[in-house]
């Protein structure tokens, strides 16, 4: 990739990539590693072209990357332990919902995780999520319903 384009993308997209990595990985070093890995992989990609949907592309790419990282068994065990240590005993209602969603990420199907992140962390509408994930608005509703069912089951179980 053209170094000037890489620099520009890093300036424009880097903050959002780091934000998303922090949200999912909950570890500053891991998040910064993810930031570097995502952009380093682009450096060797000669076919990448900046398009109108570049920002959305980075959202999806980073979300997938971090979810895969989180699902890695070694990392998952360590991160969850660290997260448990850092997690406050009480959180505001909205914060609690987000923390709960994060804690479930390692167990939930990928599409449910994605929808949950876009909905709770990015505060997207169902329409926006549907456009990003390439599916219907109705399907997004189903995914979030599955999330809520799982949450309730977890809370009760």
């Amino acid at each position, binding site marked *: 990739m053209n170094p000037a384009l*890489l*620099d520009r993308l*890093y*300036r*424009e*997209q*880097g*903050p*959002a990539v*780091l*934000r998303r990595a922090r949200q999912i990985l909950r570890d500053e070093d891991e998040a*910064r*590693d993810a*930031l*570097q*890995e995502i*952009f*380093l*992989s682009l*450096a*060797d990609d000669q076919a990448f072209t900046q398009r*109108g*949907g*570049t*920002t*959305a592309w980075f*959202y999806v790419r980073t979300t997938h990357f971090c979810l895969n990282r989180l699902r890695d068994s*070694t990392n998952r065990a360590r991160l969850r332990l660290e997260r448990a240590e850092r997690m406050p005993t009480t959180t505001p209602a*909205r914060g609690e919902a987000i923390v709960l969603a994060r804690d479930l990420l390692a167990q939930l199907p990928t599409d449910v995780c994605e929808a949950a992140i*876009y*909905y*709770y*962390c*990015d*505060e*997207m*509408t169902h329409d*926006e999520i549907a456009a*990003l994930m390439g599916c219907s608005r109705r399907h997004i509703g189903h995914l979030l319903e599955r999330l809520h069912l799982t949450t309730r089951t977890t809370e009760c179980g």
Partner: protein
Amino acid sequence: MWMIDGTGRSPDCLSHLRCDQLLNGELEDRDELKAHRAACERCAALLDRHRKERVSFAVPLQRPRHHRRWTAGLAAAAAVLGLWLVVPRDRDDGPGTRSKGKPAISFYLKRGDATRRGRPGEVVFPGDAINFTASTDVPAFLAIISIDGAHHASVYYPGGPTAAPLRVGRDQVLPLSVVLDDVVGRERLTGVFCDRALPVDQIEAAVAADGGIPRGCVTDSLTIEKRPVP
């Protein structure tokens, strides 16, 4: 009054994605959008937070390492020559500690048009190219670090940011090679075989510090002697 849903926003409110798209020029800042922000504290504050996040973003981008490649030629040479012999090396871990199944690195040397198996303490010259091979009896993640004559550490393998997966096998030709620079002297090459994909920066720092190899990793080292071109 805005109709607020479960996330605390109205359908017209900005998501984080929309904020980023707006700041990246991908979303037209139309009049109705401006009017909404003027009337919606949440969206005005969110966009302001995104702006500040950009201003305070100060993480430098690490530049990719560049390796010159001649992999295809070497891989072909290795295949044609069928070299599967174990070459003895001047191991720094002593002759008594190395077992047959221990992970190991070796290399091919390319000088001009000639390619051959590298030897222990091989005398090499700037411009020579080396392509590593690696052997392991268990799946591993590998990085190869060089400490050159000026005590400068470099990552020779892999090209990416984390140790590369290595399948079980003997003398596997790695898909990356390096052309030696003009720093002369004794150069120590260390293969670090780990049970997970550690960041190469972490491995490089550990090897450069001459100790403290990360837990779950084992090493195999060899040396080459780099001299000025005669």
